[in-house]
């Protein structure tokens, strides 16, 4: 067993520097690496390129890094819930690359899977296709999209073991397994950390080979963006 366990967040973030490219798992605020984001927001790192489906909300998630102007460029698919993000983008302070969600997922997956680029129909005929190679397959136009990798990928899982194997819960899985594959260094924070051998290998979502460091997360806030319920 190759031990991926790190005792604290300092060790988990060893090597993190300004001007790096980071990936952050999560969809909205669901499945985001809360502990790592909070720690990054307390550090003097800036000029970051962040790849994340969303950009958090004003006071939580990646919104914390935006507020301190640590992010130079965001690569996302949907940023609707963050007023500060919109302000920085429209004023030109923040560089933003908006890409279709499925393309974003596949670009991360491809980056981790050794596939440099692929063709997709998504975005053909739109701004997204600008300056991209178009090729017709089966009579339908597709655009060429490059894969993505990152200096660090930060992911969050429900359960993990010291070998770095991860299991996600519910829809908190989302981009986490794909980004875990695409990080030069992938750091996972988990709600429940087990010794290797405790998790059933049949149930692992992300094999530990993709994870370089695993740490125990704490005090998960798990904010709900839209609390919707029905009456009993």
């Amino acid at each position, binding site marked *: 067993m190759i031990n991926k366990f790190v005792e604290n967040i300092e060790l988990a973030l060893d090597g993190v520097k300004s001007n790096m490219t980071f990936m952050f798992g999560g*969809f*909205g*605020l*669901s*499945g985001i690496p809360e502990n790592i984001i909070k720690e990054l927001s307390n550090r003097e790192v800036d000029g970051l390129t962040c790849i994340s*489906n969303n950009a958090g909300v004003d006071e939580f998630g990646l919104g914390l890094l935006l507020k301190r102007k640590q992010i130079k460029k965001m690569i*996302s*698919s*949907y*940023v*609707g*819930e963050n007023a500060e993000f*919109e302000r920085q*983008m*429209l004023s030109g302070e923040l560089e*933003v690359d*908006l*890409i*279709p*969600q*499925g*393309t*974003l*997922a*596949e670009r*991360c*997956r491809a980056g981790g899977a050794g596939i440099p680029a692929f063709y*997709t*129909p*998504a*975005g*053909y*005929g*739109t*701004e*997204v296709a600008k300056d991209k190679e178009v090729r017709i397959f089966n009579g339908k136009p597709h655009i060429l999209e490059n894969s993505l990798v990152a200096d660090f990928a930060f992911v969050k899982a*429900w359960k993990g073991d010291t070998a770095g194997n991860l299991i996600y*819960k*519910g*829809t*908190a*899985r*989302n*981009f*986490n*397994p*794909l980004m875990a594959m695409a990080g030069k260094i992938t750091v996972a924070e988990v709600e429940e950390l087990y010794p290797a051998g405790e998790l059933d290998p049949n149930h692992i*979502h992300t094999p530990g080979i993709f994870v370089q460091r695993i740490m125990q997360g704490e005090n998960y806030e*798990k*904010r*709900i*963006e*839209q*609390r*919707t*319920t*029905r*009456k*009993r």
Partner: protein
Amino acid sequence: MALDKNQIAKRIAQELEHNTYVNLGIGIPTLVANYIPEGIDIEFQSENGVLGMGPFPFEGEEDPDLINAGKQTITTLDGAVLFDSAISFAMIRGQHVQLTVLGAMEVSEKGDIANWKIPGKMVKGMGGAMDLVASAQNIIVAMMHTNRLGDSKILKKCNLPITGKNCVKKVVTNLAVLEITEDGFKLSERAPGVSVSEIIAATAANLIITGEVPEMII
């Protein structure tokens, strides 16, 4: 009377076919799940990674790890499955999801849709919409007929940056049901009590009208 958002959703629910997989977008489309007709089995896909999405949870049972693409708390039904975003879009791009219901800011008579950006003003991003419209076999748009300024969202040509080309098949608004044909918008139904001339007045595109236009049954 023009329809309210729930009635638009209810009308779209009549389009649901038995034993199909359906993706509902954010906004009015999400409401469609509340009106599935009796005897129709549907599995709802949400692109953040769930198939077999159920209704909102009972108060006190919300799970932050179980949300839909609109970031609303949800539940799962028997037979549901959870997956990552790449698998989710494999279902979408690979045409395994049969129907997509989306909101829009503009729809053109060619079936182009714009719903992700107002240059210089509002940039929320396309989310999964571009992937959805690039591949779905059937795309229905749910929206209000006019915007807040009263301008038609039904157009000859989209003014805003488009999300996808030649993809929308049908539009259900608070005033009408419009089908997109090779020759443009066909007015196929009108909201109860709304006249054809009112619809024409609210529409900035040609409407193909053949014979009596029936009222929607809601």
